[in-house]
């Protein structure tokens, strides 16, 4: 059997080397490698061999197959090169594929643009954070039940002597006290856009996502300023006719706290199938809690401020009207999805 294979192989090699044009090569390919070719008929006879030979013969046949295929391809190229006498250098080349930015990156750029126009400074704070900045300084001491709202990743590492455990920041609000410490004396107008991490993964949640956090601290800042800023963002990002409203809510680090709704883009607040009652939920906001100001070294008797923190993915979905069945698709690196944008 082995001998037979080697004979066929040598015979084929010789014939391929002698072939004159690609038609010859094609017919050789059929003779040896075709469905009823010589190699295939060898493969069919494997089943008659004794067990211990089956494997080694199989390997040999496969090796022969690839050798022949490679050689045929090589010969074909050689023949084509000798045939080609004249080459038109003016034919446009095949363009190299260049990618484009991710749709979330576009959204981040667009959001930054809207806010930098009214004097917000774009910053970024650590993704790997200390407990103190993500929770403690935000009025959520250890053992506070409000922490349940943030499914946090903890890092198995030595805790900081005063800032506590190392975590992956679950929200951009961890930048609030950091920004106060950086600027020291208000006015502060910060927009912090960063990656956040939470222990959740389902059709509407990804474990890594983006938030953007606005923070304004100055003398005489009130809810009026907050509402004005939100309206400005809604009109410039979503469109002129859109309006926002505030509903009471609760966060430990703002008082009072709100949830912000925006009128539905389809019915403009009248109520339709898409939005139920005319409003869609955007995210959270509120007036900064005096304790948080104190923790950032800002005197709460002199200064007041507001903050808001929303998901980039969420506003992106709302703006584009994208109906992605599974949010995780955004970060799956699937080109069939990404090249659509």
């Amino acid at each position, binding site marked *: 059997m082995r001998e037979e294979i080697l004979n066929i192989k040598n015979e084929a090699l010789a014939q391929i080397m002698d072939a004159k044009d690609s038609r010859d090569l094609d017919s050789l390919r059929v003779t040896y490698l075709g469905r009823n070719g010589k190699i295939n008929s060898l493969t069919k006879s494997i089943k008659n061999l004794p067990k211990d030979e089956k494997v080694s013969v199989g390997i040999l046949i496969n090796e022969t197959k690839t050798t022949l295929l490679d050689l045929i391809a090589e010969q074909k190229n050689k023949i084509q090169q000798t045939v080609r006498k004249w080459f038109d250098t003016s034919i446009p080349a095949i363009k190299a594929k260049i990618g484009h930015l991710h749709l979330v990156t576009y959204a981040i750029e667009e959001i930054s643009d809207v806010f930098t126009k009214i004097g917000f400074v774009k910053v970024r704070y650590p993704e790997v954070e200390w407990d103190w900045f993500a929770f403690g300084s935000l009025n959520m001491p250890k053992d506070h*039940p409000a922490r349940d709202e943030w499914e946090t990743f903890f890092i198995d590492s030595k805790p900081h002597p005063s800032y506590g455990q190392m975590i992956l920041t679950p929200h951009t609000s961890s930048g609030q006290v950091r920004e106060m410490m950086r600027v020291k004396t208000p006015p502060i107008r910060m927009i912090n856009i960063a990656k956040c991490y939470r222990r959740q993964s389902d059709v509407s949640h990804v474990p890594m996502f983006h938030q953007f956090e606005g923070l304004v601290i100055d003398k005489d800042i009130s809810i009026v300023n907050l509402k004005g800023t939100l309206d400005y963002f809604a009109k410039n990002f979503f469109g002129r006719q859109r309006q926002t409203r505030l*509903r009471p809510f609760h966060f430990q680090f703002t008082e009072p706290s709100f949830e912000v709704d925006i009128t539905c883009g389809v019915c403009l607040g009248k109520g339709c199938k898409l939005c139920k009652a005319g409003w869609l939920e955007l995210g959270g906001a509120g007036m900064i809690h005096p304790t948080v100001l104190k923790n950032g070294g800002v005197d709460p008797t002199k200064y007041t401020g507001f903050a808001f923190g929303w998901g980039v993915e969420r506003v992106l979905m709302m703006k584009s009207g994208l109906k992605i069945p599974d949010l995780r698709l955004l970060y799956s690196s699937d080109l069939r999805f990404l090249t659509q944008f």
Partner: protein
Amino acid sequence: MNILIPDKWLREFLKTLASPAQISEYLSLCGPAVERINETSYGPVYYFEVTTNRVDSVSIYGVAREAAAILPRFGIKARLHSVKVGEFKFSQKVKYLKAIVDKKLCSRFTAALIKNVIIKPSPKQIQDKLTAVGVRAINNVVDISNYVMHELGQPVHTFDYDKIKGAKMILRESEKGEKITTLDGKTYLLPGEDIVIEDGQKRLIDLAGIMGGENSAVDSNTKNVLLFVQTYNPLNIRRTSMSLAKRSEAAVLFEKDLDPELVSVGIGRTIDLFVKLTGGVPEKEILDFTTLKRLQPQLIS
């Protein structure tokens, strides 16, 4: 915190002509937010999201109280019907139980003995209501605890009175390494500083505020039931519940610091339901310790 509130049950406490759609819209604008309304065989059921600082509204009565305050602001008449409970005598000393309570751990402690209880399935009406709030009906004793917890937001525990050795209880802080088997059959090695109850034979019979002990649980042969309604130090409850990863409904409520005043309504309502559903006979006096000081109103301007 998310809770299910059946419209029919809500209206036992809320007199109003507001439609479910109006209740949903106006409450969402001012207080607890309605995520959606489910149509069930028990009528419409609201799915409410209540923020963690408002543990007082995590119940049917709590939402009714919010609604009675909110709806009139939108020009809709609404009145709150208070929870009606029988007359009871609260006393610091009772014959049926000797209790030593660490006041740091427990701001309000009440207990009541109900004798000759007959354990059987609850009436269909009670079962339907429990199903509507997402609770499986088991038997009248278990159902009453769940019923009161969902109606008032006050967890209630029941002991088999005859399993409490020496009719004695010591409510204290646990020591690290003490062992308890809870009524779901799981055994825990306690991390320390947990609130536990020990009986007259020094057995741990309750992981207070989180789950009862297996050795004192009500079973199908139980005759006499000791009702147990309290408020605990929220920090201890939170720590134990988190470190044992035991997030019972009771623990989630207790860790948010319940109102000690709710305890009297809670135990009263439970006793009334026991009389009605189990045929049990309550002892005249309710054991009651409290560190609560009622503040007198002060005129400030």
